[in-house]
C-alpha cells in the first residue's frame, strides 16, 4: 500500500509523504486526518473499509485499482450509519422483491461502482457471507443478481456491501425492465444475424448471375435466392409488419408503410418473374435492404440504451420501503411495507423522514419541507388537523398522522400519473421520417399509377408493369429510412460526449421550433444550496458561537444545517443543551451555558448584496431575549447563469422563470438576470407550472425537481439537469450530466446542426429518387442497376451524416465563458 502512495508522490513531486488517504485517495491536511496504526485516512469510513479489506484478505483491491489507474474513489459513508436493511427479511417484503423462488434470487441496483476493482471486490462477497450462494454483477447497468441460500436472509447482501462503502437498492419485481430489454435485444440480434447470413449468400449467388452465369446455374441460383430470401421477408421483417399493423389501428402513417410495401412488391414480383422465367428478380436488393435497415435500427437502439443506462438511477422520492404503522389491538407501532399502507391507518415518522402517503396531522404541529411541490427547501409549519402531502419531508421531531390517501391517490401520485400521460402522448407524436414517408408514399403511388397507364399505352401492359415495379423499388425511401436512425445515433453519441444524455432522437425534430425557454429557479438557475451568505461571527464571542452550534445541532431544519456546517470547522467546545424545542413557525430555542438562546426568522428586508446572492431568510440570535447577532441566509446564482441567459436572449428566445418560491426571492433572481418581471412566475404549484408551459407553446423547460415534472412533460423539449429527481428525469427528453447551464447552448447548437443534416439528406434523397425514378420509367433500370444504385445512395447519405457529425465537433470549439 505504501507503494501506491509513494509513486503518486513522486509523480506530482509536491505532495508530502503519506498525505493521501489510503482508501479514497483524498488529499489530507491537518483538519481531516485520522491516524490508525500508523496509517492515515481522511475519515472513519475510509479507515473502516481499509481495515475490513485487510482483515478479509481482500487488500488486492488496491493493487487492482492501481493497475486500472484509478487513484481516487468516493469516500464511503461511515458503515455504522446508513439504512438498516433488516426489513428485507420480513415475510411481507419477499413478494415484492424476490425475483425467483428457485434459486432464491433478488436483484439490486448498486451505487458507487467505478472500476474493475469494485467488480472483483463485490464478486468476492459469497466467499465470506454464508447466506449468499452466488452473485454476478453487471457493470453496464450496475445491477447485481444475487442468489441467496434458503435461510432467506436478504439483508445480508446490502449489509455486506455497505461495509465496503457501496449502497445497494433492492429492485422490485416490476422494476426489472432490464430483463425485458435484454430479451428484446437478443431477439433483434438474432433477426439481424439471420438477415446477414441470407443477404450475404444471396449477394454471392447474384454476383455469379450478374457476371454471366446462365442456363441451369442461373435457374438454380435464382431458386436458392428465392429460398434464402424467405426467412428475410418473414421472420426478419416481422417488426416492420407489426409496426404497420399498429399504424393501421391508430390511423397514423409511419415510415414502415413504404418499407413493407417495397418488401412485398419486390418479393412477390421477383417470385412471379422467376416462375415465369423472366430475369427481372430483386431478391438481392430486397434482402440487403432489410439487413441494412435492421442493422441501422439496432445501432440506434444500442446507442440509445447505453445512454439510458448511463443515466444515473434517479433517487426516487418513494424509495423508502417501510413505515411505522400503529396496530390498534397491540397499541404499538410496527414496521409495514409502504405498499401495503391503507387509508385510515395511523403512521409515525421521525425527523428527516419523507411522508409515504397523504395524511391528516395528528400531532400538535410539524415543520414540513414541501420541496416536492414547491421546489424550495424552506419548511412550512403545519398544525394539527391539516393535510400533509406524500413526498414532503418532516423537518421537526416526531409526527403522527392518519393516512388519507396512498399511492396513486395521493396528490403527488395524481400529478405523476398526469405527467406520465403527457409524456406518453408526447412521444407517440409522428416523427420527421414518418411525415416524410407519408408524403413520399403518396407521391410514389400516384406517379406509379399514372405512369403505368402512360407507359402501357405505348409499350403494352407487361412492359409497363416491369418499369413501374422498377420505379417503385428504386424510389423507395430506403436510403433515407436507414440513414436517419444512423445519423440520429451518431448525434446522440456526440451529445453524450458533451454531457447531454438524450432519451429520444425526436428531440431534434422539435428543438429548432422552440421559442420560449422556461427555467426553474432553485437548483436550475441557482445552486439550490441554502447557505449562510453573511454572518459577522467575529463580533460574537466564542461561548455564544458554541452555544448556537449546540442548539442548532438538535434540529433538522435547513437553516440549522447551514449554521452547523458553517461553525463545525471551528473546533468549538460544545456545551450541553437543555430545554431544546422548536418554536412554532419561527425557529428554535434552548438553554446552554446558563443562558437561554433563541434563533428566529425575522421578516425579510431587501438590502444591497453581492451580485450572485439571493437572500431568503434573516435569522436573529437572541441571548436571554436580547438580540446579539444576525445571519443572512440564502441561495446564489450559478456561475454561468448570467452568461447563458444573456446569450439566449441575444439569440431571440423569450425567457421565463417558473418557481414555487416566494415572490421576493424570484424577483431578486429575475432582476439580476434581467428577465422581465412579467415573465417571472412565483409561488406556482406543479399544476400551474405545467399550465403556463402548455399555454405558451413552442417551449423548452429546464428543471430538476418533482414539481417541475409536469412542466417538463408538457413542454416540447424537457431538459432535466444534474441532480434531478428520478421522476423528472424519466419524463424529460434530455438530461444534462454536468452541473452547468452552458450545456443548454450546446444542446441548441446540436439541434441546429442535425436539422441541417436532415435537410441535406432529404434534399439528396428527393433528387436521387426523382432521377432514378425517371430512369426506371424510361426502362433503363434492371436488377443489376438497382443492386448497385441502392447501396450507392446509402453510402452517399452516410457520408453526409458523418459530415454533419464533424461539424458539431468544430462547433464545440466555440467560445466558452
Amino acid at each position: 500500500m505504501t507503494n501506491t502512495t509513494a509513486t503518486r508522490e513522486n509523480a506530482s513531486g509536491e505532495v508530502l509523504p503519506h498525505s493521501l488517504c489510503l482508501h479514497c485517495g483524498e488529499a489530507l491536511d491537518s483538519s481531516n486526518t485520522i491516524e490508525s496504526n500508523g496509517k492515515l485516512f481522511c475519515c472513519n469510513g475510509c479507515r473502516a473499509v481499509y481495515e475490513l479489506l485487510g482483515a478479509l484478505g481482500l487488500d488486492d483491491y488496491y493493487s487492482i485499482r492501481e493497475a486500472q489507474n484509478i487513484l481516487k474513489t468516493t469516500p464511503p459513508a461511515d458503515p455504522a450509519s446508513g439504512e438498516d436493511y433488516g426489513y428485507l427479511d420480513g415475510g411481507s417484503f419477499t413478494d415484492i422483491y424476490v425475483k425467483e423462488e428457485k434459486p432464491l434470487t433478488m436483484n439490486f441496483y448498486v451505487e458507487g461502482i467505478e472500476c474493475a476493482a469494485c467488480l472483483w471486490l463485490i464478486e468476492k462477497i459469497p466467499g465470506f457471507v454464508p447466506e449468499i450462494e452466488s452473485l454476478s454483477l453487471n457493470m453496464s447497468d450496475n445491477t447485481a443478481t444475487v442468489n441467496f441460500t434458503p435461510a432467506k436472509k436478504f439483508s445480508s447482501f446490502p449489509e455486506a456491501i455497505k461495509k465496503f462503502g457501496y449502497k445497494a437498492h433492492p429492485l422490485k419485481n416490476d422494476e426489472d425492465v432490464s430483463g425485458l430489454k435484454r430479451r428484446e435485444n437478443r431477439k433483434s440480434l438474432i433477426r439481424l444475424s439471420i438477415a446477414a447470413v441470407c443477404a450475404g449468400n444471396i449477394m454471392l449467388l447474384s454476383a455469379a448471375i450478374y457476371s454471366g452465369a446462365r442456363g441451369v446455374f442461373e435457374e438454380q441460383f435464382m431458386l436458392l435466392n428465392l429460398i434464402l430470401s424467405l426467412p428475410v421477408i418473414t421472420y426478419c421483417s416481422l417488426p416492420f409488419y407489426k409496426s404497420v399493423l399498429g399504424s393501421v389501428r391508430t390511423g397514423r402513417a409511419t415510415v414502415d408503410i413504404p418499407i413493407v410495401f417495397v418488401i412485398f412488391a419486390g418479393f412477390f414480383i421477383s417470385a412471379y418473374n422467376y416462375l415465369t422465367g423472366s430475369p427481372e428478380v430483386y431478391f438481392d436488393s430486397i434482402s440487403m435492404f432489410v439487413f441494412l435497415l435492421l442493422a441501422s435500427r439496432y445501432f440506434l437502439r444500442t446507442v440509445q440504451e447505453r445512454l439510458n443506462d448511463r443515466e444515473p438511477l434517479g433517487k426516487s422520492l418513494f424509495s423508502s420501503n417501510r413505515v411505522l404503522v400503529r396496530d390498534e389491538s397491540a397499541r404499538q407501532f410496527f414496521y409495514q411495507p409502504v405498499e401495503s399502507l391503507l387509508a385510515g391507518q395511523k403512521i409515525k415518522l421521525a425527523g428527516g423522514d419523507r411522508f409515504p402517503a397523504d395524511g391528516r396531522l395528528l400531532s400538535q404541529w410539524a415543520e414540513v419541507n414541501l420541496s416536492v411541490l414547491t421546489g424550495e427547501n424552506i419548511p412550512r409549519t403545519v398544525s394539527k388537523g391539516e393535510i400533509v402531502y406524500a413526498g414532503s419531508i418532516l423537518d421537526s421531531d416526531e409526527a403522527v398522522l392518519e393516512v388519507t390517501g396512498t399511492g396513486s391517490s395521493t396528490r403527488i401520485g395524481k400529478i405523476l400519473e398526469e405527467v406520465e400521460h403527457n409524456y406518453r402522448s408526447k412521444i407517440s407524436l409522428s416523427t420527421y421520417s414518418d411525415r416524410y414517408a407519408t408524403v413520399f408514399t403518396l407521391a410514389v403511388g400516384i406517379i406509379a399509377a399514372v405512369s403505368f397507364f402512360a407507359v402501357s399505352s405505348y409499350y403494352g401492359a407487361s412492359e409497363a408493369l416491369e418499369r413501374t415495379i422498377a420505379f417503385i423499388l428504386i424510389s423507395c425511401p430506403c436510403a433515407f429510412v436507414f440513414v436517419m436512425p444512423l445519423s440520429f445515433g451518431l448525434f446522440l453519441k456526440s451529445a453524450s460526449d458533451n454531457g447531454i444524455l438524450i432519451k429520444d432522437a425526436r428531440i431534434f425534430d422539435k428543438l429548432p421550433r422552440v421559442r420560449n425557454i422556461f427555467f426553474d429557479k432553485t437548483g436550475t438557475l441557482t445552486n439550490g444550496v441554502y447557505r449562510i451568505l453573511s454572518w459577522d461571527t467575529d463580533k460574537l464571542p466564542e461561548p455564544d458561537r458554541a452555544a448556537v452550534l449546540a442548539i442548532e445541532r438538535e434540529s433538522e431544519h435547513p437553516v440549522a444545517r447551514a449554521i452547523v456546517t458553517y461553525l463545525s470547522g471551528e473546533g468549538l467546545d460544545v456545551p450541553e443543551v437543555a430545554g431544546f424545542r422548536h418554536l412554532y413557525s419561527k425557529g428554535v430555542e434552548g438553554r446552554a451555558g446558563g443562558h437561554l438562546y433563541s434563533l428566529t426568522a425575522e421578516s425579510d428586508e431587501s438590502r444591497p448584496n453581492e451580485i450572485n446572492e439571493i437572500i431568503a431568510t434573516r435569522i436573529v440570535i437572541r441571548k436571554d431575549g436580547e438580540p446579539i447577532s444576525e445571519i443572512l441566509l440564502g441561495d446564489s446564482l450559478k456561475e454561468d447563469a448570467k452568461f447563458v441567459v444573456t446569450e439566449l436572449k441575444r439569440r431571440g428566445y423569450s425567457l421565463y422563470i417558473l418557481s414555487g418560491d416566494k415572490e421576493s426571492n424570484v424577483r431578486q433572481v429575475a432582476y439580476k438576470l434581467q428577465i422581465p418581471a412579467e415573465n417571472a412566475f412565483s409561488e406556482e404549484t406543479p399544476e400551474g407550472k405545467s399550465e403556463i408551459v402548455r399555454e405558451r407553446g413552442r417551449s423548452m423547460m429546464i428543471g430538476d425537481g418533482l414539481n417541475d415534472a409536469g412542466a417538463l412533460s408538457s413542454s416540447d423539449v424537457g431538459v432535466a439537469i444534474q441532480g434531478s429527481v428520478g421522476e423528472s428525469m424519466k419524463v424529460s427528453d434530455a438530461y444534462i450530466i454536468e452541473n452547468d447551464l452552458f450545456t443548454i447552448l450546446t444542446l441548441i447548437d446540436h439541434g441546429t446542426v442535425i436539422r441541417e443534416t436532415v435537410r441535406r439528406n432529404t434534399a439528396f434523397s428527393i433528387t436521387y429518387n426523382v432521377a432514378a425514378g425517371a430512369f426506371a420509367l424510361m426502362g433503363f433500370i434492371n436488377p443489376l442497376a438497382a443492386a448497385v444504385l441502392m447501396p450507392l445512395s446509402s453510402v452517399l447519405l452516410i457520408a453526409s451524416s458523418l459530415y454533419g457529425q464533424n461539424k458539431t465537433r468544430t462547433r464545440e470549439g466555440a467560445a466558452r465563458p
Partner: protein
Amino acid sequence: MNIIFLTLGVSIAIALVFLAAFIWAAGKGQYDDLETPGHRMLLDDYDTDKKNQQAKEDTGK
C-alpha cells in the same frame, strides 16, 4: 461443373452452422453484457496468484 452445387451446398451448410451457433449464443445471453466479462477476465490473475501463494505456503509447512 456439377461440383459447384456440392460446394454451394457445403458453403451454405457451414453458414447455417455458424448461424445456429450465433443464435444459440445470443439466446443464452452471451451478448447481453459486453462490458463486465472483459474486466472479469483480467481479474482472474489476482485470484490465481493468491492460490499459488497459498499452495506454496502449504507445501512449505
